[in-house]
């Protein structure tokens, strides 16, 4: 009974701030609504429009690319960084803090920092050119259609990977040291130890990070919006920024609600796969 009493306030808050708007979003997704005034019921028209919307497919493709980047780069870096950190005892806390700091700095600050560093005229490219290394001189990382998306992903990765290091480090520290000793006795090298001891030992954390990465990649918004706003010409547009533009720039709030629900559906599907795998006995 006491437990229920403790939980009740949170349930009430969640009902107010999550369930209420969620139900409203479902309703508005079936309407044509500018965000002000009355909404007109249009049935499934918004969903049909999404299926025919070229901008949506481009943005969704960018989310997929983003997911691929974040499933590979920060996870590889995180594993490697955690492994290196696990090998040292002195200054480990210093490095842990240093890796983690970008994660707790506001995205606006991180973005501004990298916008200055990567500025084609005043950033690292021109500074390197001044000392005879000109290959980055004048490169406009955020203004080029080809580079905008990977450049923003790079900035976001810079803030994110330190967090992944800490998750993996904690998992690594929980792997039984005797398993490594046994593997060594069986003649396993470093790589085989990593494959056969480390990876199985941290599998729950790895799957958790993968799940978190996929969901975060589908919902990505802040760095893209702050740095490029989806530009140039949609080259870094993701569904999150497209949705925002539909709601607050094109004043198609009903359409944006449908888009948001579509995205939630995909995220939900991924979580369901995760739950399904757990029930099938996967240690995730």
């Amino acid at each position, binding site marked *: 009974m006491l437990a229920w009493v403790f939980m009740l306030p949170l349930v009430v808050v969640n009902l107010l701030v999550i369930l209420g708007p969620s139900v409203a979003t479902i309703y508005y997704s079936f309407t044509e609504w500018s965000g002000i005034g009355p909404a007109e019921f249009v049935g499934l028209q918004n969903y049909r429009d999404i299926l025919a919307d070229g901008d949506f497919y481009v943005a969704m493709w960018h989310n997929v690319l983003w997911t691929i980047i974040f499933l590979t780069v920060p996870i590889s870096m995180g594993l490697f960084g955690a492994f290196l950190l696990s090998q040292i005892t002195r200054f480990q806390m210093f490095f842990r803090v240093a890796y983690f700091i970008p994660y707790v700095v506001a995205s606006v600050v991180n973005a501004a920092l990298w916008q200055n560093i990567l500025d084609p005229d005043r950033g690292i490219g021109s500074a390197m050119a001044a000392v005879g290394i000109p290959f980055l001189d004048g490169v406009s990382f*955020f203004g080029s259609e080809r580079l905008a998306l990977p450049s923003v992903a790079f900035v976001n990765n810079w803030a994110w990977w330190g967090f992944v290091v800490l998750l993996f480090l904690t998992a690594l520290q929980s792997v039984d040291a005797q398993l490594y000793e046994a593997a060594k006795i069986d003649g396993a090298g470093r790589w085989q130890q990593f494959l056969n001891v480390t990876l199985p030992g941290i599998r729950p954390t790895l799957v958790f990070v993968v799940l978190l990465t996929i969901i975060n990649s589908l919902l990505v918004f802040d760095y893209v919006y702050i740095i490029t706003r989806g530009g140039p010409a949609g080259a870094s547009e993701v569904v999150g920024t497209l949705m925002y533009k539909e709601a607050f720039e094109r004043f198609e709030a009903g359409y944006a609600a449908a888009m948001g629900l579509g995205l939630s559906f995909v995220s939900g599907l991924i979580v369901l796969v995760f739950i399904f795998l757990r029930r099938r006995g996967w240690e995730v």
Partner: protein
Amino acid sequence: MRRTRGFSRKKFLKLGGAGLAGATLLGVAGCGGGEGGSGQVTYWSDLEGSGPQDYFKQHIEKPFEKANQGTDLKVTFQPPTEMDRLVRTALQGGEGPDIVMTPGPAYAQEYIDANLFAELDEYAGQYGWDNKMLGWALDLGRYENSLYAIPYQLQTMLLYYNVSLFEEMDMEPPTSRDELEGMAEELMGQNIVPFAAGIGDDPAAIEWFPTVFWNHYSGPDALYQALTGETTFSDPIFVEAIELFNTYVQNGWFGGSREQFFSNSFAALHADLGDGKASMNVEGSWFLATIGEYFGQAANNDNDWEWAPLPPLRDGIPPELYELGIGSTLSVNRRAQNADGAAAFIDYLVAGKERVAEWMAAVPSAFNAPLPFEEGDFPSSMDDRVERQLVSLSQATGQGNFGYTAWTFWPSKSDVYIQEEMQKVLTGDITAAEFCSGLDEVFTQDRKEGAVPKIIEPGSA
């Protein structure tokens, strides 16, 4: 709303300090009526920077309250780029300030359609706005013969230039397309960017350029015909203007390169103009508020600035043509608790010529009200370049030499189309003809829905 820039306290004090004393005296004199209802009046302002905000509190808010005993003006400063989103959300939730600011007449119309604004005709009669304000401007706030919105923050597009660099290179501001292109080639040859430009901070700012090229290449008559439905935006005259802008960007004349045009921040491009890395800048009159920060002692250079009208880009276009822009509109929230007090404050803010002139001198461009200013109307503390711009705009528009800004005369959906699709022309994803044809489709739909604001005929202002 994005068409205003930040303004540091230090620079503000330098620029407008001399105007403060006079403004204080006038403010205390408080010739603002005292006819408003009592109680609280809430107002969301888009003023940025501690200097202008302090000025507002000291020289506008307090004198207004003094002149309207019993009225408590509660001002909240909102980021200009977020204002419309915040207003939209608040009004939809049945809240919002008593005095509502929108980004322009086309945006105001949406709120009027949703029955969220109060009619102002009674107040217009009470305060004599028809006699005080410019008729064409007031007409922009009328919908189906009723007044709902007061246009505010008059703007136009200007050509700013680094006068020190021009003297060094023996140049004059261009007065024709040939001169402009000749200068641009010469400057590029000297590794100087002809036009400091970029949309890195605000991609929607790309709309400044179609606005300028349509007005100064296609011309205001063609625009009037397109905006009133007599012709279409697919007409070659509009396509050619977009192609010309695209050519200039691909040449690197705007911002240095196409990529830099996409990524340059305002601070960087303005610094380039001040330092002489770029020679000119096409921007709205709002830049007068902060341009001083990038020149002379304030920016550690010995340069100075000046402005000129944008040149005609085709034969038959008037040599001195100013696009008319409305940076915002002011309306009374239909749910306002103190509608009389709200109307009284709008009158105080917009309709007192002498008072407004003082504010305009102290904080350039932030308080530009639609009033018939003439030479001699402004205090001596006003920068003569700012005064010249205001008088020139007034005279030219009086002669009918005015054009149309996208954010004032295009319906909001068409305006958003321009902001988003213009980038695709520059990246080569679509052609200028496809861009104009797409605009035509959106605009035709807007027209059908009655979303086009009143279009003033050239020569009728």
